[in-house]
């Protein structure tokens, strides 16, 4: 799932300062699941910015709408009526949704209400951890099903490095939380699987071109000729 966090409200208020009427657009996909951009958060942000602008004596009208997925044009079409009524949109979808909704309504300015953080798993209520980097060249077969790109701070393909201490990564300290050493995790998993020999296999340098955008993915067997 794509994981996002809410943007500081002062930033959002700055973006929409010139406007009198805005639409907050939520998404029922990943950002609902990661508790950042569903109908509930749309309501909370709407209430907050209404009050903020009332306090400044510069009343703001806020419309609220949440649809299935902002990364699909058909769902974005449902925003048409409300987009027509407002000066600007604040989208609480991930970066993909924000842009794609914006593409649908090119004459209405769109602003991000969230920062898109990572591809992660929901460990428990209120906690998410990165698991995939979308590098385009998966090596999980060689690493016991644990991704060295996403989970090693240096994305080393042949680890661990000297900064692995007692199972933790040396970069832990500045970010306060203990980060497990990705390569320790790989070692432990391979050990449990009886595949430790894979540790001595040198993984050759990756084709990082596949990790660099702009990327497009086309399946000729599926594309429709709409002419």
């Amino acid at each position, binding site marked *: 799932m794509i994981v996002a966090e809410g943007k500081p409200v002062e930033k959002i208020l700055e973006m929409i300062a010139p406007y009198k009427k805005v639409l907050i657009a939520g998404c029922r996909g990943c950002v*609902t699941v990661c508790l950042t951009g*569903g109908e509930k958060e749309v*309501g909370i942000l709407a209430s907050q910015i209404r009050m903020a602008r009332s*306090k400044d004596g510069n009343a703001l009208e806020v419309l609220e709408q949440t649809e299935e997925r902002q990364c699909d044009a058909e769902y974005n079409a449902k925003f048409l009526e409300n987009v027509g009524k407002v000066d600007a949109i604040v989208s609480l979808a991930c970066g993909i949704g924000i842009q794609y909704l914006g593409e649908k309504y090119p004459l209405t300015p769109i602003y991000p209400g969230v920062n898109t953080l990572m591809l992660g798993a929901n460990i428990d209520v209120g906690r998410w951890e990165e698991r995939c980097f979308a590098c385009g060249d998966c090596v999980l077969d060689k690493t016991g099903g644990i991704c060295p790109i996403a989970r090693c701070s240096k994305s080393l393909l042949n680890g661990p490095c000297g900064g692995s201490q007692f199972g933790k990564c040396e970069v832990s300290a500045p970010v306060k939380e203990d980060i497990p050493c990705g390569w320790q995790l790989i070692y432990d998993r391979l050990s449990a699987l009886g595949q430790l020999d894979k540790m001595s296999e040198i993984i050759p340098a990756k084709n990082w071109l596949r990790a660099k955008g702009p990327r497009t993915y086309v399946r000729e067997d599926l594309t429709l000729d709409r002419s």
Partner: protein
Amino acid sequence: MTEQITNIRIGIYLCDCDGKVSKKVDLQKAKTVIQSQAGFDYIRATDVLCGKLEQEKIGAEIDKYSLNRLVIAACVDPFIMRQFLQLADEKGINRYNVEFVDLGAVDSTEAAVAAANNALGKMHLRAEIGYEELAVTPDVLVIGAGSEAAAAATAIAKSQPVVQIDNVGTRVIGLDGFPGAFTVRLLENGQAVKKDFGAIVLALGAVPQYDKSKYGGIELGADILSLSQFINSGKDYAGKKVSFALGMADEDSLLSFAAVLKAALDLKGEGASEVNVLYEDMKVCADGLEQDYELARKKGVNFLKYTGEFQIVRFPSGIAFKYREPFLSDPVKIVADYIVLAEDFVPAAGTLELAEILDIRTGPGGFFQKDNVHFLPIRSNRAGIFFVGSCHGPIHGTDLYNEIEAVLAEVSAFAKGKVSVPSLQPKVDAEKCAVCLTCYRCCPHHAIEIVHGEEYNNMYYSAARMNPLACQRCGVCAAECPGKAIQLPLYSDQEILFEVKQPARIVAYACENSGFLASEFAKTLDPELQKDLQIVEVPCSGKIDIIYLLKALENGADGVMLCVCHKENCKFVWGNDRAEQRKERTQKILNQIGLGERIDFVHVAANQGNQFNTAVKAMAEKIRQSGTNPGKVVK
């Protein structure tokens, strides 16, 4: 199932309660004001609404005007409520479609009109509540090997099938499903098997355990015995001096005291020459114990009170207790042939593992159940799983039989293989459900499952569903849902937000188990203080959504309070903790936009009217310092 009904016809009745109400409220004027607005189909004011003739008249009016919802504005008491609910039942009106307005509690015509309008508005927004007919498994699983489990199994077997397991030879390794339809995974002679049960009764008991650290390191031996060693020794104590000691390890438990009394009486019967019982606090508050104590004294058992810690000293010729008596200056020595020390009780082996497997909470001493004033003794945090006996703390004698009776009353509801329950559990709008599992994970009662099927109209063809027998209606799930897909009947967002459309200066969201009751008590102590205060009742503080707090402020309140149960004492396990987290976030939201300190979080019990008033004063002072809410949105 809940369905939105379209043909709502509301009758509103205003009662003067034989002149009581018109001392403060001009009832005719109130009626005229309400009549001038829309929102009802029939209105009538009368002197006394609760008479028999009136009931017949209302019955006829219900038929004549095809009323299907009622608002009864009267001096509400349980008698009147029962009478009208009965009338509703007779007339085929769902009892959840009758709303009461307490005119005894309002002190002006305006307040009476406002309260009536509030009830009318909510009646329009209320979803129809149906009843669900559910098939259930009558079979009950009793877990435990001792006498307590056997007694429970025997009692339950009279009404329905029972399987008793000792949790050693056959043990529980997993649990799925809901009350009435549990599937228990068992390990039976090394084989994993699944069996269906409607309810589970835990009766693992407690075991005595001698812990020498509680007795200053005293080792047991030939003449120093633990209480259970003594009971099982089978020796002849005729002509011997035996001294018992209570209170050092067993925290003066009734169970130890009862055992010591019985042993002392037996010893006297067997011709022991001297029997002494050292105690710190006498605990006789159970059936029969005081009689036994009196009898023991009559038969010559000596009861000796000590203070502080006693010692055991050894002579060439024997042993003695050395202790301080509260009223004598010098230490006292009691010589004995045998010294018997009461032990601590600890949970039976396997208690903790079973708690983890069933997700049942443990509390003081590692026994089942948290130390929480709202939890009934036999109920666990999961409906359909019950405790009997010492597995939730050592209990004695008649208490056990009371518990068995209470459990029997609960499990026998399933004896007929089907139950009918009002569909009051939260309802999920599948179109909005993202199947994110937030509700599933936040439910304190394991009442939620994810179901799949064509009828769930979203891209996953799936939705969360609350089980009507497992759900305890706290509303935590509804407040946590990021998609606003969950609504708790009788407390929907619509109904609650309707109440704060034009809020008072201070809005207090109050848990009906604590804060709400405290507010009612507080009003009798200082009615003036609640002039600017609006109480919004919620089933649990865990139902208080961030949006409720924000909307009250957006609509013009200057301050918001959350009145919740004391810490560790939420009836629904962690509702008050979730409320506290939401309060923190909401205050941050206000700080970000410079609205100042406007939210108070108050732990208050039902009987703390004074504390409630103190909290209201503190809130008033806080908003006096923060000033009028500048965030109010003028519409």
